[in-house]
């Protein structure tokens, strides 16, 4: 399976600031996704990162709050904008590679705390 890295692994941020999270894959992948796991909750899909075009957002998530870029087939960024304490979560990227279209593989996650 693809090797996925995320930066930063964790951060503590002040209310009102923005943080950009990077996701790097060691091989070209078909699809990339961004998830959020709030404390004690399940994983929730934020959006599908589309290469060369705007991301596809799930209900409840908007581009102004979570802008996403995917300039190529191995890299994507998620920005959490104008942060509030409610944004404190683990943010994860996941990918589907060519081997199987049904299994997603996840990065290690970015633990964000907003004060």
């Amino acid at each position, binding site marked *: 399976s693809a090797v996925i890295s995320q930066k930063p692994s964790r951060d503590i941020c002040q209310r009102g600031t923005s943080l950009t999270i990077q996701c790097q894959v060691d091989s070209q992948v078909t699809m990339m996704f961004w998830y959020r796991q709030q404390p004690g909750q399940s*994983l929730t*899909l934020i959006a599908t990162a589309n290469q060369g075009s705007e991301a596809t957002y799930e209900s409840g998530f908007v581009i102004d709050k979570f802008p996403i870029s995917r300039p190529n087939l191995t890299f994507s960024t998620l920005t959490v904008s104008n942060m509030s304490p409610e944004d404190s979560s683990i943010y994860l990227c996941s990918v589907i590679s060519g081997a199987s*279209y*049904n*299994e997603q593989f996840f990065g*290690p996650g970015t633990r964000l705390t907003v004060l």
Partner: protein
Amino acid sequence: DQQVKQNSPSLSVQEGRISILNCDYTNSMFDYFLWYKKYPAEGPTFLISISSIKDKNEDGRFTVFLNKSAKHLSLHIVPSQPGDSAVYFCAAYRVPSGTYKYIFGTGTRLKVLA
């Protein structure tokens, strides 16, 4: 509306015994199901999956059973090992949708006692 439910937040099992983790779903359109394991400070790791055309899939110590009429799946780990201690998530999605949108359960924390 929680479409995928894991009603047991935690489970403790003695080493060497069987661990059974349960998952229920409400959407009959789901046709592909997965189990992931998550250690602290790591991302979820794919364990095993099953298509709705099957009722059982086995991979080493891990077996997933699917009961479509009951909208229920379970993960059996035999024998359980201390290294299996982690949070287990089930996930479901609808393949024909083409969206690859997984719906996750809330997870069950498994503790295997040595």
